[in-house]
């Protein structure tokens, strides 16, 4: 094994153990950010010792013992000599003598993990800070990995994490769990973070960097963790369903050359059946838990319609446009309205869709949004209004920020131009 192999093996083992380490340490120290720091120190210790000594037979026990030792040292060092801390230190020392009791730890990891997730995603923190903390504390990514995933310098993420932890400590939020009645409200902040991470990976899935699509997987993993620790929250299941169903299309979303393939043109045989099954299961569970569909459940239901359809023609577009109308009522947004335009265009014909899309051209929020032009171009093309379609697609291509999307829009504009000429030739 090369040094790099050993390094990767250690990181893999560590990520596997990290949730248990950080949750049990935070319970002992009553401080989530501190617990996270100390588990990182255990990782550093493993990276120092294991390359020479080899990975121990029970790496989890080794890491736990090391992390606990750091915790005891910390309590001594900081001399928080309140009686309570003495007792904690003594208890821990006694525990230290014996092997860590993993069974006892596993039994209530759920509550502790819930606390961890809610702390990392505290609404007091900026969205960026919540994302970084969640990836670090819940997924066990290193600062460098997070930085690479978001294409920013390591120091930016490191600072973000340090500042966020300080904010938590200074606000007295280092160890708290929202009460029952707060849970749903606070959960919204958690779901938002997970959704953001997923979208960051999903919309970037164009092969610039392997870690960006990897963000989808991290978000999925967090989504699965959330439904296991908050099993009565319909929106947690809704978000999981939305992510599983969206991710089921990953293989079909790009062609062999890495070019994006639009939903209408995707080879549905390449959709991931296992993931669809899991998504449908989560969606069913969400709907058992609540009689009214929430924000994520509605979006998942829309994708579920596609997932269940064998082809574009078999799709229940009327149902989808109804779901979009519902979604637009729940969370009014021009982007959702644009999606509704597409669905209505399929259900009732391009003229009906275009009527909705045209209303959106006055929308300031969509002034520089390339997909509006893309949708209008498509609908205009279907109506045979090629010249207007070409103008819309060309304008859209100038707005696209992503190279691949820009190329796709230019290609479509060129196709429409060819159609215009075809038309003129016939005249």
């Amino acid at each position, binding site marked *: 094994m090369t040094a790099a*192999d050993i390094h*990767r*093996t250690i*990181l*893999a*083992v560590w*990520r*596997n153990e990290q*949730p248990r380490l950080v949750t049990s340490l935070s319970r002992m120290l009553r401080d989530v950010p501190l617990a996270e720091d100390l588990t990182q120190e255990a990782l550093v210790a493993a990276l120092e010792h294991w390359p020479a000594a080899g990975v121990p*037979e*029970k*790496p*989890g026990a080794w890491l736990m013992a090391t992390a606990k030792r750091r915790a005891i040292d910390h309590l001594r060092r900081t001399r928080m000599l309140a009686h309570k801390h003495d007792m904690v230190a003594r208890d821990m020392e006694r525990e230290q003598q014996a092997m860590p009791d993993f*069974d006892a730890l*596993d039994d209530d*990891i*759920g509550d502790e993990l819930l606390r961890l997730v809610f702390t990392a995603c505290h609404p007091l923190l900026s969205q960026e800070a919540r994302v970084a903390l969640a990836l670090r504390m819940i997924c066990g990514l290193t600062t460098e990995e997070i930085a690479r995933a978001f294409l920013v310098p390591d120091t930016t993420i490191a600072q973000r994490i340090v500042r966020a932890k300080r904010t938590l400590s200074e606000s007295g939020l280092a160890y708290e769990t929202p009460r029952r009645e707060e849970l749903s409200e606070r959960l919204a902040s958690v779901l938002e973070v997970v959704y953001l991470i997923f979208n960051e990976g999903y919309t970037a899935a164009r*092969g610039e960097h*392997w870690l960006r*699509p*990897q963000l989808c*997987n991290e978000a*999925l*993993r*967090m*989504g*699965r*963790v959330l439904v*296991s*620790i908050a099993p009565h929250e319909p929106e947690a299941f809704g978000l999981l369903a939305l992510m599983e169903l969206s991710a089921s299309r*990953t*293989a079909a979303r*790009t062609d062999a050359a890495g070019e994006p393939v639009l939903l209408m043109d995707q080879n549905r045989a*390449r959709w991931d059946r*296992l993931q669809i099954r*899991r998504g449908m299961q989560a969606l069913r569970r969400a709907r058992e838990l609540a009689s009214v569909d929430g924000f994520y459940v509605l979006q998942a239901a829309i994708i579920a319609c596609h997932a269940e359809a064998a082809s574009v023609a078999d799709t229940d577009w009327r149902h989808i446009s109804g779901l979009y109308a519902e979604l637009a009522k729940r969370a009014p947004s021009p982007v959702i309205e644009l999606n509704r335009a597409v669905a209505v265009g399929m259900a009732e014909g391009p003229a009906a869709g275009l009527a909705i899309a045209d209303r959106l051209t006055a929308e300031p929020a969509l002034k520089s949004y390339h997909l509006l032009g893309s949708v209008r171009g498509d609908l205009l093309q279907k109506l045979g209004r090629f010249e207007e379609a070409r103008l819309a697609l060309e304008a859209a291509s100038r707005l696209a920020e992503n190279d691949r999307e820009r190329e796709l829009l230019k290609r479509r504009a060129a196709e429409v131009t060819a159609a215009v000429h075809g038309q003129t030739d016939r005249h």
Partner: protein
Amino acid sequence: MRFMYIVTSPQPNRYPTPALMEAIHKLADREIKAGRMIDSGGLMPVAMGAQVKVSHGKLSVVDGPFVEAKELIGGYAIFELRDKEEAVAAAVEFMQLHKEHMPDWEGVCEVRSFAPSEAEMPCQVEARVAS
């Protein structure tokens, strides 16, 4: 990356002890809650199955039990993991349980990555327990 774990053993009549079963259930529960294990299934004994073969241009259907069946495959699990290292670490932990609870058992946990859809590299490793 998605991985399939298949456990085989040359000792077809050895069943896991209750202690091992409990340890495995506990590990599985943890892995499901951690969002890593996404599917699993057990297989009925090979004696209850059938084999459809093509050999020398001839097709034949043979019902179980099979005299030549030497290796027992009891089931599979599918994991969604970051890389091969993580997959191996998980297999090692799983086989460690066997070693602890059934010291004289022998078997192999095969770790197979699903064929990549993008630029991921395939891999194949085995974690072996031998007494």
